[in-house]
């Protein structure tokens, strides 16, 4: 096995003379961008060249999540062809392997990489390909265009740290509340969300235990979309609320059952078979609705107005092994 220093070595070209972007190579995959597209090329299992084209704004929005989430739980499909599967120390990169037709035709490619190698490549690609004024985390109505020739960068936006409470938002030595002063103003679409904090009446000495915070106010100040934070933790039960607007930039194929609790407004979900991509169901979620995404599905959401979604994840490290052994249930509950 290569030394970590080698693993993090990124294979990249000089910037294109006209377009200004670098190309990247990772194993048998090549990536280049132009004004409108990300182009991915590979050699198929049966040895032929194949290519795929994605709108570069959609590609960068997907890449942003994959990078920011450390490849997340399970599969992150950028679209119906390309994506990654997280094995938590290594990551599969594939084209066509979870597309029923392409897989059957033998034209797919899947390669496993040490996490640090693919992470380093993706991070550099994201940074090189993201122009000044384009924020892949922002809602489409709140950012400029991803298109055109290379102009500047937006490193600050794409390297935002994920906000992860250890126990609960607002506790001493834990994730702070969001405020104007901390650069988190209320989003335009949540201007009507009350900003009051809970009435707390701690007896002396119990100030850090008699604790509550306004979750909806906290979420109304989220600067990003489709990017869960941790706000409260019970053992390995993580409340991962997030604010959603427009389209989830990835099609998530979780390796475990994942629960959604819609806290306001609405999201429409397309659910499809994880392995083949075939449509399975639509899930229309309104304020107060709860739904589980079975572990055999991939899901992509559409949020017409910025909305608050509570993603509830089981982050138990044992679960990874149970999933590998096939002991983890694919459906949320039997009844």
């Amino acid at each position, binding site marked *: 096995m290569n030394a970590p220093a080698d693993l993090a070595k990124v294979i990249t070209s000089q910037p294109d003379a006209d377009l200004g972007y670098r190309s990247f190579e990772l194993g048998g995959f090549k990536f280049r961008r132009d004004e409108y597209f990300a182009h991915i090329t590979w050699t198929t299992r049966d040895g032929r060249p194949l290519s795929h084209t994605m709108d570069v704004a959609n590609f960068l929005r997907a890449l942003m999540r994959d990078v920011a989430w450390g490849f997340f739980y399970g599969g992150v499909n950028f679209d119906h062809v390309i994506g990654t599967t997280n094995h938590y120390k290594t990551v599969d990169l594939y084209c066509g392997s979870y597309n029923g037709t392409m897989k059957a035709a033998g034209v797919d490619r899947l390669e496993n990489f040490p996490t640090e190698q693919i992470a380093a490549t993706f991070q550099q690609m994201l940074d090189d390909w993201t122009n000044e004024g384009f924020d892949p985390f922002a809602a489409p109505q709140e950012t400029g265009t991803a298109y055109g020739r290379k102009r500047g960068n937006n490193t600050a936006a794409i390297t935002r740290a994920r906000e992860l409470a250890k*126990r*609960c938002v607002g506790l001493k030595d834990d994730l702070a509340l969001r405020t104007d002063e901390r650069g988190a103003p209320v989003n*335009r*679409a*949540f*201007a*009507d*969300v*009350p900003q*009051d*904090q*809970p*009435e*707390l009446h*701690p*007896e002396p000495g*119990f100030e850090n*235990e*008699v*604790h*509550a*915070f*306004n*979750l*909806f106010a906290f979420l109304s100040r989220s600067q990003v979309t489709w990017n869960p934070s941790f706000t*409260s933790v*019970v*053992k390995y*039960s993580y*409340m991962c609320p997030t604010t959603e607007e427009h389209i989830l930039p990835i099609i998530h194929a979780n390796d*475990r*059952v994942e*629960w959604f*609790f*819609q*806290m*306001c407004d*609405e999201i429409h979900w397309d659910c499809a078979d994880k392995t083949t991509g*075939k*449509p399975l*169901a*639509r*899930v229309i*979620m*309104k304020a*107060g*609705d*709860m*739904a*589980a995404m079975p572990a055999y*599905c991939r899901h992509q959401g559409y949020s017409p*107005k*910025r909305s608050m979604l509570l993603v*509830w994840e*089981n982050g138990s490290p044992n*679960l990874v092994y149970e999933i590998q052994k096939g002991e983890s249930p694919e*459906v*949320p*509950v039997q*009844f």
Partner: protein
Amino acid sequence: MNVSYHTKFGSLSNYEKGRVEPIDDDVKHYAFSNCFEIASKSKPYEKVVFGQNQIYVLECLRAEGESPWYTCAHDEFALVMDGEVEVHLIQLEAPQQVSDADKNGAVLVEGTPRGKKMGWMKLKRGHQGLLPKNTAYQFRSAKPGVVILQTCKGDLSIERWADICQVQ
């Protein structure tokens, strides 16, 4: 352009439920329910499980009047989705605490909770409160409200999936 938005929350008195639209799957696999619908059909403080993942659950409670005193060996969190709910906390003395530190889920405190008063808080819609492990806590709600509990499945958890979920 200056447009104003209306953020749509639900409540016991006013909610609209979505649905699963199956294409080629069993709707039961989506365990689709609605907290306001559940709470509108529950008795006060029934701990109705409406999300579960191994040992972990999300429970939906109709908050109405005073709840019993609970305690739990691990932290829990209460998120208010409707109404105004007070949470009263007592630093429970060791004999009344859950003796098994690994025990999942809340239990009723046996007898009157003994220990220092820690204080109380008043949670409105969107407020989330910590229920620290090994304390005794009680909900008080003058009018019906809805509380979501982040906890583990325990002795008091009630499962009635077929009643709460979309089945076809």
